[in-house]
């Protein structure tokens, strides 16, 4: 009995004593770092170092933005799902967006962790990291304009303010040009299909809904929920002019068309009869520079008469196009 008592005490005592100390914030005892206080896009106060050399990204759109800003040398790690550009897949991974490994993040010694509130990242992850004394800045791009602001914020945090301004200016210019072309044209009514079975589309407060408006389109479904589920009969009643799918539905457009025409309820839709089915890149749902490509692509497909003489199928800028722009600016990222 004595032995068991000793064993019990031996188990409990060090744990109890040491847990009492775990509460205080962690100081980087080995170095003094100058920090500034900023407010992130969700309203949190964050202490960010002046010099940011190691960034961990918790969302694919942030990773893409970092590459677009030419800052990939500062990217110490990203998620398993960061695949644009392809080089991002080679970076050290910290796990999924929903539940990244806090230890893996800590092991990468980041100066700054970037999370996306308008995405699969959870507030709990951000809070947990903040608790551990890691600087976490959360973006919250709910609209295309919001995305521009996020890019600006990220670039200034990472010490690349000039690249950020330039990138945003370029992207803004393209959007403005698009608006000019589409001026005076009525918005095309579309059904944006997130998932076919059950049929799920977008709500009016989603990022995609905003992107659609910039493309000269509007969802036929007005819903407060982000991902409303519809019955197909409802779609028939709403009579969309176009049906939009994203790249997750693989196969060529022709194959997709014939597949839709063979399905009982779908083939009755006017849009299907007229062949008004469009497939665009998944970037339409990603608040990153590649979004502008997707918007342009969609605008071309929905308003073919607004772009005389341009081949719609060739309208797919690779993200590399954007990169080249940045490279021309010639700014270095190192600090």
């Amino acid at each position, binding site marked *: 009995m004595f032995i068991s008592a000793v064993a019990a005490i031996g188990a409990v005592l060090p744990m109890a004593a040491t847990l*009492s100390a775990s509460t205080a914030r962690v*100081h980087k005892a080995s170095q003094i770092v100058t920090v500034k206080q900023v407010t992130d896009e969700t309203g949190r106060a964050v202490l960010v170092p002046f010099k940011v050399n190691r960034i961990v990204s918790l969302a694919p759109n942030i990773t893409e933005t970092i590459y677009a800003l030419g800052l990939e040398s500062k990217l110490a790690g990203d998620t398993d799902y960061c695949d644009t550009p392809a080089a991002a897949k080679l970076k050290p991974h910290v796990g999924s967006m929903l539940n990244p490994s806090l230890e893996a993040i800590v092991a990468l010694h980041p100066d700054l962790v970037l999370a996306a509130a308008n995405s699969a990242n959870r507030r709990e992850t951000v809070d947990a990291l903040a608790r551990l004394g890691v600087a976490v800045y959360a973006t919250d791009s709910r609209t295309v304009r919001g995305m521009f602001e996020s890019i600006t914020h990220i670039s200034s945090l990472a010490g690349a303010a000039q690249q950020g301004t330039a990138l945003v200016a370029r992207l803004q210019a393209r959007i403005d040009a698009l608006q000019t072309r589409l001026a005076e044209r009525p918005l095309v009514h579309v059904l944006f299909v997130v998932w076919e079975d059950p049929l799920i589309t977008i709500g009016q407060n989603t990022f995609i809904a905003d992107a659609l408006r910039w493309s000269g389109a509007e969802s036929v479904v007005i819903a407060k929920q982000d991902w409303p589920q519809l019955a197909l009969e409802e779609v028939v009643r709403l009579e969309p002019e176009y049906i939009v799918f994203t790249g997750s539905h693989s196969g060529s457009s022709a194959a997709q068309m014939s597949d839709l025409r063979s399905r009982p309820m779908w083939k009755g839709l006017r849009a299907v009869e007229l062949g008004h089915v469009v497939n665009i890149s998944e970037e339409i749902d990603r608040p990153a520079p590649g979004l502008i490509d997707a918007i342009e692509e969609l605008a071309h497909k929905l308003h073919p008469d607004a772009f005389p003489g341009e081949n719609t199928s060739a309208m797919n800028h690779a993200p590399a196009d954007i990169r080249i722009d940045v490279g021309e600016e010639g700014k270095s990222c190192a600090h």
Partner: protein
Amino acid sequence: MRPLTPRRIAGICGVLFALLFVVVVISLRMGTYPISVSEIVMTLFRGAFGHRDEIPSEFWLVVFGLRLPRIALGILVGAALSVAGAGFQALLRNPLADPYVLGVSSGAALGAILSLTFAPHVPGVIQLAAFIGAAATIASVYFLGRRGGQLDSATLLLAGIVAASFLSAMIMFLMTTLSGHELRGMAFWLMGDLSTPPPTPNVLEWLLFLFGVFAVAAGMIYATTSDLNLILTGEEEARHLGVNVRRVKLVVYISASVLTGLAVSVSGSIGYVGLLVPHVMRMIFGTDYRLLIPTSAIGGAIAIVLADTLARTVVAPTELPVGAMTALAGAPVFIYLMRRRVR
């Protein structure tokens, strides 16, 4: 004829505690961040004796900020769920009873969803709301489960199942109709998550509070264990032998529900532990509840810490939810136990 003595209980618990200690040390060692056992031990001891500044900040972070709180929470949740499970198995006279059968976890989940919808990110609200949801369910099922003025096992079971289904339906409804942003966290909560940060800045205070509640509720169950032993051989017989069956049932019902509510409020619903640990302990140590309750508590702690360790290391850096791990391990154990019973 060897009756149970306090000495024997302490001896067995001592061995189990030692096993728990080993499991804790192993768990401290495992993880994505590379840190060796000697570094862990050094961190622990320097921390215990106040030499915090001698520890590299990241060792501190990993051991005290990440792993140890999670392990401590796992011990608490495992112990609470197992004791609750053992209690419900006796109360409901049903070996298949687990802590969630009376709908307590669904009530807690509903409370959590509502709090996420109306007051997200206020520290402590989700745990409080979950606990209130659990308490409301406990009270409702109690009133539904009475017959002739006292708790009747069969009626209670039915009332609990009905409550659980109803609450689950409401949860489904809310999850599909409400906006997606705040509810991302719910998926994890529903599958069990030991990494929820405490609502108070001081981790130790929070853990001590939780352990305090556990100690009170588990203690109350323990005080009824010799009564429970008799009730298990028949309620009428127990009454004739002088057991206040009505009071004992009420005490066990409330305490086991509180333990379940506690566990679910801090970590979501982790399944199989409350069902299986008491059975395994019974197989090894017998049905005497005076021994079963403490061994289930420690056994449950060991099980959850092991499951959580596996959950965060098997497919690193991705972390599986703890509930998935207990289900994966629990299902085969359950099948094995079922087959043994049909001797």
